[in-house]
């Protein structure tokens, strides 16, 4: 493998990305360059065959379905219901309704595959409610930014589907692997709110709704639709009844039925949700098309194998390797979105990960966690953009408010590195259907 050729490919990649060429097309162009440099085979033909094969796969169908499900629920009254069901209970904890952000996002994350959608769906209810009651903006915005990222970690998760398809591991296992780390992270966030509330008792507004226990339980019934959907989607995967694709179909049908029962489903909202899902999954499909071609091309260049050997030769301890990767991803995440980051690095790093003896399910969860961090680091952080649009605050204010939650995510990475079973235990117990 020629050093200059490698350097040339890297410069070309970052040059094209940096100048603003569409990400999927940048990947395609670099893959093409790599192929032309390293093989004499008919590049165009190999390219379309690969893209056709990966673009028409049964596994991939889970992607638009989960996106569609999220789009339907975003347009339903689900988040209002959840707030009504949660708030009487959360008012009991130190930090009170700030927890509706965290628990609300956690529950919504379990029916939605995206972090910005989670953040926006929960935020559109909690921001006005918390503002009206006088909660400090800094805490409202911070917890929402942090907890919104749980949309990536708690299944179903779009980015896990992308990782699963790219690294060829079971999407069902990835989903189940994200459950415990997701709950762990939500727990860390809630702990942060409680500690803050204990230290600043004067800044937590008093809650004047006094409800009897019975009423609280009755208010809790508003949570049932969400819980039902979670059981449908995650339960069916874990019990081995359904593949990721089948559970996505359950989820999309369930979301349609739910919004119909709520009366929020009409012709306009159906078409809106469907076309929103079409555009979003098309956008990801273009990146995936470029990425599948890049993976093919990298196989011909031998670059990933060389990197694996080089990193293997450095003799890093697993801790050092993981710390180095985390820093690398956080920096990359300042410029790229999570999905591009995953497909781009997996095309190059997969052999390195395998050679280092890291479990591919574990690594998937790790990558999702660091992508979550990237969601709330400027200059490019989708959750920051979403919250900027919703609250009107400066991006720097939102990013500052999210710093403590960012640090808690670093703690979470340390914890899953220390105790890999947090990730791997549940997936090993499940019955996998492919």
């Amino acid at each position, binding site marked *: 493998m020629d050093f200059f050729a490698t350097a040339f490919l890297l410069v070309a990649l970052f040059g094209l990305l*940096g*100048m*603003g*060429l*569409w*990400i999927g*097309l940048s990947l395609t*162009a670099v893959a*093409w360059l790599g192929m032309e440099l390293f093989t004499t085979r008919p590049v*165009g*033909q190999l*390219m*379309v*065959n690969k*893209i*056709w094969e990966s*673009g*028409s*796969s*049964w596994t991939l*169908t889970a992607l*638009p*379905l989960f996106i*569609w499900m*999220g*789009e339907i629920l975003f347009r339903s009254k689900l988040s209002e219901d959840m707030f009504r069901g949660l708030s009487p209970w959360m008012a009991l904890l130190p930090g009170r309704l700030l927890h509706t952000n965290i628990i609300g996002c956690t529950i919504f994350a379990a029916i939605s595959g*995206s972090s*910005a*959608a989670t953040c926006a*769906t929960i935020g559109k209810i909690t921001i006005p409610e918390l503002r009206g009651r006088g909660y400090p903006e800094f805490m409202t915005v911070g917890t929402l930014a942090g907890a919104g990222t749980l949309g990536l970690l708690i299944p179903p998760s*779009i980015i896990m589907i992308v990782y699963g398809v790219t690294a060829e591991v079971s999407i069902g296992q990835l989903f189940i692997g994200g459950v415990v780390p997701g709950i762990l992270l939500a727990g860390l966030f809630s702990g942060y709110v409680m500690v803050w509330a204990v230290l600043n008792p004067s800044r937590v507004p008093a809650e004047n709704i006094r409800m009897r226990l019975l009423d609280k339980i009755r208010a809790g019934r508003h949570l049932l639709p969400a819980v039902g959907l979670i059981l449908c989607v995650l339960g069916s995967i874990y019990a081995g009844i359904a593949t990721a694709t*089948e559970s996505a*179909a359950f989820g*999309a*049908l369930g979301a349609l039925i739910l919004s119909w029962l709520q009366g929020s489903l009409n012709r306009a909202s159906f*078409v809106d949700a*469907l*076309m*929103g899902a*079409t*555009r*979003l*999954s*098309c*956008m990801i499909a*273009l*990146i995936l*098309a470029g990425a599948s071609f890049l993976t093919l091309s990298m196989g011909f260049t031998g670059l990933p194998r060389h990197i694996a050997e080089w990193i293997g030769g450095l003799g890093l301890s697993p801790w050092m390797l993981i710390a180095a990767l985390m820093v690398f991803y956080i920096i990359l995440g300042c*410029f*790229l*979105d*999570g*999905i*591009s980051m995953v497909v781009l690095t997996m095309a190059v790093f997969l052999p390195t990960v395998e050679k280092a003896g890291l479990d591919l399910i574990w690594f998937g969860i790790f990558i999702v966690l660091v*992508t979550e961090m990237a969601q709330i680091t400027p200059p*490019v952080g*989708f959750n920051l953009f*979403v919250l900027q*649009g*919703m609250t009107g605050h400066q991006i720097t204010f939102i990013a500052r408010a999210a710093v403590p939650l960012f640090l808690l995510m670093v703690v979470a990475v340390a914890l899953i590195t220390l105790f890999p079973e947090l990730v791997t235990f549940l997936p090993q117990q499940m019955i996998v259907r492919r």
Partner: protein
Amino acid sequence: MRGALQALYRACGALAGAALVLMLTMITLNIAGGVFGFFIRGLDAYAGYLMAAASFLALAYTLKAGEHIRVTLLLQRLPVGLHRGVEITCLALAAAITGYFAWHSVDMVYISWRIGDVSQATDQTPLWIPQSLMAFGVVVLFVAFVEETIDEIMGRRKAPPKTDEPAHIE
């Protein structure tokens, strides 16, 4: 001409949406078959074809909605003149890449048709049929990029609508 192109992009988008609905139907039928004990041949393969159709047919429509992502961090900071130059280069490159992609997609359909390639799965569909939907979508994307390039050069390209849709992937 321009009106016709707009209509073409929108029609392809609508077809892609319909493909998604059909795909959900196929998968649901597949599940129902497992539960109620009937079997329809090739449903999983059809779902895959519809997945590809939905992805590729929507390409131009998604581009026009400004939802294909790119890194605009540096681009935004360039002075106006340079910005325009880089933008034209990007569009021209994109047209070249999608042109190459479109050419080979059409070629793939032609080859599949000529050698009578059929699916290896139970559906045994002649592959040129589903593949031609992908090829068509890519050709339309190429046309859209050419149109955008010309518009940018003529200085009449409209910025894509700013969506406040929070529904971004991440």
